């Protein structure tokens, strides 16, 4: 494999991670001014900012590799649905607070493990982004795990809402632990994280939290996949039409 090819593959990997972070950050940013109380509104906004910041770092790396006129915004604003390669779980609409926090918790457990591994990547830029992200993810997880306990072991209503949210999210989790050829190849070289290897630890952590939160583990009887290959739910297109509106309506301008 030539160096150029190798870089191109790393770029695609960086874009995937950027897409995950952007879509997740965007969904969280929708909560700003809509939180259940002011303090939580500010906290959700903080987390949103962390993810959008993370997206910018991954996209900037991709833009460095692409060179020319590419910038972080090229990937966020000038690609359509089929080009986005985020995991599907991130693009689902925020739903109620239980849904948002359940998704956040499931992915925070994963993100912390993922970023801890990515710190060891032989690619220095990816490792540097991961080092910054680990600190944020620790804080995110502490928060979202607390919410699992409060909602799970709070009122009957909060318990019911959380249990339903987890059921609605569960089938999007298998995709998170699957590697396609691109990621497997990078993982074999010590560049990407072997996310399949994280599954055991993740399940253990999640089960422990569920038990403390008096939540049942949802049934493993359905699963949806496709995000990494550009197959998406219908929700992503609407999110992009919102996200990209100004740049699409007034192309080629500085803002």
């Amino acid at each position: 494999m030539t160096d150029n090819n190798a870089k191109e593959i790393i770029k695609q990997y960086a874009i995937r991670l950027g897409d995950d972070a952007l879509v997740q950050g965007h969904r969280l940013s929708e909560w700003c001014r809509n939180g259940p109380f002011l303090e939580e509104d500010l906290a959700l906004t903080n987390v949103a900012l962390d993810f959008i910041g993370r997206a910018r770092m991954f996209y900037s790396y991709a833009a460095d590799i692409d060179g020319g006129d590419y910038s972080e915004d090229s990937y966020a604003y000038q690609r359509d649905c089929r080009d986005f390669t985020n995991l599907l779980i991130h693009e689902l609409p925020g739903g109620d607070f239980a849904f948002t926090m359940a998704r956040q918790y499931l992915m925070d457990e994963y993100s912390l493990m993922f970023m801890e591994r990515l710190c060891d990547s032989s690619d220095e830029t990816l490792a540097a982004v991961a080092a910054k992200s680990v600190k944020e993810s620790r804080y995110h997880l502490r928060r979202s795990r607390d919410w699992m306990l409060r909602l799970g072991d709070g009122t009957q209503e909060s318990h019911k809402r959380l249990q339903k949210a987890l059921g609605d999210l569960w089938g999007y989790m298998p995709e998170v632990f699957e590697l396609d050829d691109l990621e497997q190849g990078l993982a074999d070289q010590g560049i990407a994280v072997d996310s399949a290897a994280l599954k055991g630890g993740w399940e253990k952590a999640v089960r422990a939290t569920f038990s403390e939160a008096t939540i049942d583990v949802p049934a493993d009887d359905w699963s949806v996949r496709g995000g990494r290959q550009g197959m998406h739910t219908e929700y992503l297109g609407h999110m992009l039409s919102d996200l990209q509106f100004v740049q699409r309506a007034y192309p080629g301008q500085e803002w």
Partner: protein
Amino acid sequence: MTRVLTEAELEEKFQARIDAEEKIEPKDWMPDKYRKNVLRQMSQHAHSEVIGMQPEGNWITRAPTLHRKCILLAKVQDEGGHGLYLYSAAETLGTSREEMNDALHDGRAKYASIFNYPTVTWADMGAIGWLVDGAAIVNQVSLQRTSYGPYSRGMVRICKEESFHQRQGYHIMMVLMRGSDEQKNMAQDALNRFWWPSMMMFGPHDTESAHTAQSMKWKIKRQTNDELRQKFVDQSVKQAEVIGLKIPDPDLKWNEERGHYDFGEIDWEEFKQVVNGNGLCNRQRMAHHIKAQEEGKWVRDAITAYEEKKRQRADQAAA
């Protein structure tokens, strides 16, 4: 035995402290009207910060670059934080945040009327940051010297963050004015729509203002509405000129003698109309605030229930 001071003597001592530039603290004696006046002003200020999250929040998901999105998110988050400081400062006078929210919802408490105007283009993020935050800073810088201690200290913290807000707004306008014709028109249109409402933010003329005289005497306000408005006009005219924007006031003219800009009369009928519920967004703003509060109720209930269970478990373990 010390004689109990009469109300008049207490008021006299209170005024002497104010005159000596002493700060009034929550546990100090204060005239009932002073307490009500400060509380009204702080609650209105807090509600304005929180309701003000809506018109800018309206563009968070549509910000045109990731950099702008981060700045806007951080800014709206700051406004929420300012709301928190102010609610806390107001709570020192014995009224809870819930009570203040109830008063907002049933119309007893007000918020800045400027937030009843819609944000319809991206340039409105520039106009709000530059003009609305600009006007707010003029007012808040003055309020750093307000006589009520918690309010004054809150203002010192808030002013530090507001100057960043104004700069980011002005920067949005500057970039638009360097751009395409469409962008320039967008910026000018935003200025046209937000200029007069920003001027109205300082409130009625001093001669018409119901609260000014007493507020000045108690040093709750340190400068009058008209003084602050003049300061805002003087600083904004030059800022507009530098980037090629035209302030929509045919009567705007430098007055050598006064050393200030003269400006046209505000349309007070429009002001009255919008304050009284006839703005484009009054109902939307209130409905949004009430909806967020209602939808969050089960979450707040869950926290209370969880904390209660935790406490009971701790008690049982200790027993």
